[in-house]
């Protein structure tokens, strides 16, 4: 990459420590891919006509939203090319390029957003500061009464335990000072609270971000995580939609995290919303109060946590807010209770694991009846349906379809989706023959007591495309787990193939032996027949019978 400094747009200021030949926006850098939940949260926090500062790299839609909604917006980036690109895209935005520690804001900001955390505010031009130092520098940019939104990656996040090789120890170009050697980095939610307190900030609300730190799709407040969350919700939080089967292990592990009520401690990432107390208040360091007490008092303040959502999560194309007694679809949906029961896909995968075909038959029959007789949602999937033992309920809102599809096609679509995901996830299942998703789909339909054919499956595929939710999983970089799974599958197939060959060889040997015996018998019979034909008796008989036969033919001819 070669970028000359004299090409910088007029709104880009170099403050020192800028990285000229570096970009944080490439896929390798792994900037947190915040989407709807973060946008919704920022909308709620945006001060009318206030000053907003974005610290570190953020996804483009989020920057665009801030640039449009804020009275005055500024961005601090370490990458020079990124700063130039941003400066060109938003000429009214003040873009500062350099290290956080040397940034002199002049006037503090009403809202400081550092959703990507503090790691990418350091520059290769200077030794990396400790987390607390960076936080102190960041806190200094927050005006009294202003707010800070800070993303903090959890070193003990549930997603960490799934990595064969941690992403921050891959000796990537951005790891000149690898993460993990900073003693001031928060080692848990309480440590995070203390860090914020030490920086002179009061915590308003802390969210746990799920399902992973690369692309959080849900924010759940500590208060919400203390409750027993229903399956319909935790399943959604546990893995991204396109990975709910693929990432089977993370899903299981994350479900356990919620079941053990460790959602806050083991969150892949935290998103802390803190406020700098007005100047009249006593410095927090002098107050002998616990962090939780601080949290409560801050929450009770006007404009405190009460206006912040209890939780936000993305499901399909929709964004939902968690309420004390249910959920509501944003922006203007009504409150709905969260359906109870177990996620259908989990019930099926569990049944497959113990080869319980009776349960599969029963559940699929009930599903088919639900679609046919109870106007079930044809756009649902086994991963977005819960079953409480008697009834099915869709977790997400039904998709808008121009016309209701044939229940058979709808069933095929749901089951094909399940088949694709089951096979892709490498779960154990009892069907040895239909290794192809379409064939397995037809078998599943048969188990539901519905006779479908390839035409129905083709229509189901079309319906999937119409809904914009292809069953096939997106290509992804294979993980250690995938490799192990692939190896196991190949080993099984090889064992089966070898056994089949051995069996067929045995059969072949047996058949060959039988063939040789039969040929010998045939030879013997032919020899006997030849000897018989040569015998005097046979020849006499033939000679005697021939004239009679001729006479009979002549008689027949004459008699017409």
């Amino acid at each position, binding site marked *: 990459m070669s970028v000359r400094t004299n090409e910088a747009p007029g709104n880009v200021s170099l403050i020192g420590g800028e990285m000229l030949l570096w970009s944080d926006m490439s896929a390798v850098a792994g900037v947190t891919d915040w989407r709807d939940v973060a946008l919704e949260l920022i909308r709620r926090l945006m001060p009318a006509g206030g000053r907003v500062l974005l610290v570190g790299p953020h996804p483009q839609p989020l920057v665009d939203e801030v640039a449009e909604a804020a009275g005055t917006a500024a961005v601090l980036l370490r990458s020079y090319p990124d700063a130039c690109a941003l400066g060109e895209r938003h000429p009214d935005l003040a873009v500062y390029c350099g290290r956080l520690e040397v940034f002199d804001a002049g006037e503090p900001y009403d809202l400081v957003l550092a959703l990507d955390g503090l790691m990418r505010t350091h520059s290769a031009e200077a030794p990396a500061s400790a987390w607390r130092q960076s936080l102190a520098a960041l806190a200094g940019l927050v005006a009294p009464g202003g707010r800070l939104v800070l993303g903090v990656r959890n070193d003990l996040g549930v997603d960490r335990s799934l990595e064969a090789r941690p992403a921050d120890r891959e000796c990537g170009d951005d790891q000149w000072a690898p993460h993990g050697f900073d003693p001031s980095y928060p080692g848990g939610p309480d440590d995070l609270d203390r860090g914020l307190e030490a920086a002179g900030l009061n915590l308003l609300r802390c969210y746990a971000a799920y399902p992973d730190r690369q692309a959080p799709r849900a924010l759940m407040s500590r208060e919400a995580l203390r409750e027993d969350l229903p399956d319909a919700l935790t399943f959604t939080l546990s893995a991204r939609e396109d990975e709910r089967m693929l990432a089977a292990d993370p899903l299981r592990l994350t479900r356990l995290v919620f079941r053990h009520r460790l959602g806050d401690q083991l969150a892949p990432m935290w998103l802390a919303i803190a406020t700098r107390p007005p100047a009249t208040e006593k410095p927090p360091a002098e107050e002998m109060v616990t962090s939780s007490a601080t949290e409560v008092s801050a929450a009770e303040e006007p404009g405190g946590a009460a206006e912040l959502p209890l939780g936000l999560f993305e499901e399909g194309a929709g964004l939902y807010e968690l309420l004390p007694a249910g959920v509501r679809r944003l922006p203007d949906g009504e409150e709905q209770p969260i359906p109870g029961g177990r996620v259908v896909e989990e019930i099926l995968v569990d049944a497959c694991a113990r*080869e319980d075909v009776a349960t599969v038959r029963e559940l699929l029959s009930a599903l088919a009846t639900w679609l046919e007789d109870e106007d079930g949602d044809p756009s649902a999937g086994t991963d977005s349906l819960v079953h409480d033992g008697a009834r099915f309920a869709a977790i997400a809102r039904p998709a808008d379809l121009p016309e209701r599809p044939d229940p058979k096609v709808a069933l095929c679509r749901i089951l094909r989706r399940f088949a694709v995901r089951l096979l892709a996830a490498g779960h154990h299942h009892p069907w040895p023959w239909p290794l192809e998703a379409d064939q397995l789909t037809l078998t599943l339909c048969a188990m539901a007591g519905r006779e479908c054919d390839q035409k129905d499956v083709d229509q189901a595929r079309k319906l999937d495309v119409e809904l914009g939710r292809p069953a096939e999983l997106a290509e992804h970089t294979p993980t250690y787990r995938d490799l192990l799974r692939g190896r196991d599958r190949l080993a099984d197939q090889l064992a089966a193939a070898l056994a089949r060959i051995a069996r067929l060889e045995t059969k072949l040997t047996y058949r060959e032996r039988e063939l040789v015996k039969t040929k010998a018998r045939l030879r013997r019979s032919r020899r006997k027949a030849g000897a018989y034909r040569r015998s005097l008796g046979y020849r006499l008989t033939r000679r005697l019978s021939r004239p009679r036969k001729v006479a009979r033919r002549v008689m027949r001819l004459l008699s017409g």
Partner: protein
Amino acid sequence: MDESNHWYGHSHILGRYCDIPDETPRRIQGYLQHGWNYLHGFPPNDQWCCPGYPRFIWSDVLRRRGWSMGRRGHYLIGAPWIYLLELEPELGVRPERKGTIWYPFHGWEKSSVSGDHGRLADEIRDVENGPVTVCLYWLEFANPDIRQAYKSRGFRVICHGDRGSRWDGKGRDFLRKQLVELRRHRRVASNRLGSALFYGASVGCDVAVYGDPMQFEDERPEYGGTERRKRLWPELHGTSVDPGLAAEITRRELGFEYQATPEELRRMFGWRRARAAATPSGSGTALARRQDRAARRDPADPQPRERRGDRAPRAASVRQGQPRGVRP
């Protein structure tokens, strides 16, 4: 796939259930359990069941046991008998059932059993009150001494025939004959627990297991012997057995709750459906059978029975005119 899939007309029955035209039974792509078994559904030396092909077994306990013994690829479909009951709800049904049908434990083509049939016949005479029919396996039936041992005590001696093979039609009606015989008797007994006992219990016969259990010449130790059978099912041994308990165990052992749909079986067995040759919708097809059952259902009964549940042993007995089900 394997010859044993076609024994006792199993493949023929399943073919009929799947609306497959009645010709030479098709090859089943997998291994069908051919008799009640308390190991894993197959003999201990089952290396001929090669991995990659499913093992179609009757009950979940066999799957669990097989799994623990390193076997995989089980697929539960229940016993072919339950499909025969579905196909033949009326076959051999009589208003009044009499006597006992007694199945002495039998050997097979490659291994015979040793035991004193004369002594067993005496014991049967002492225990049974009504007329007794002794059903011998064709090997024992071919032995005039064994036949005579029972005939001389005044018993009727029959044989359901050869178990057959895929290529000859001999075993095709084995289970049908057995069904007819079981439905004419009030009681079924044997000196060992076996398929016939459970088949009998499933059509409403009282059950009894008594007498010298006899021994295979090379009985495999993996089964655990008679003692294990007695430990596992103590309640089924004796001259008089609780019918409710027998019904419950029968339901489990024959896998009534695992009955598959015809289309599922066709797909699992690798049977492509010959649509043109199959009977068009009407009597005889699986769909027609189901509709027929629905029509025959008692209209006064507001709760329709479960699809598979209605074949489960239930209160109505055969003696009351019900074709299937065992007494509670």
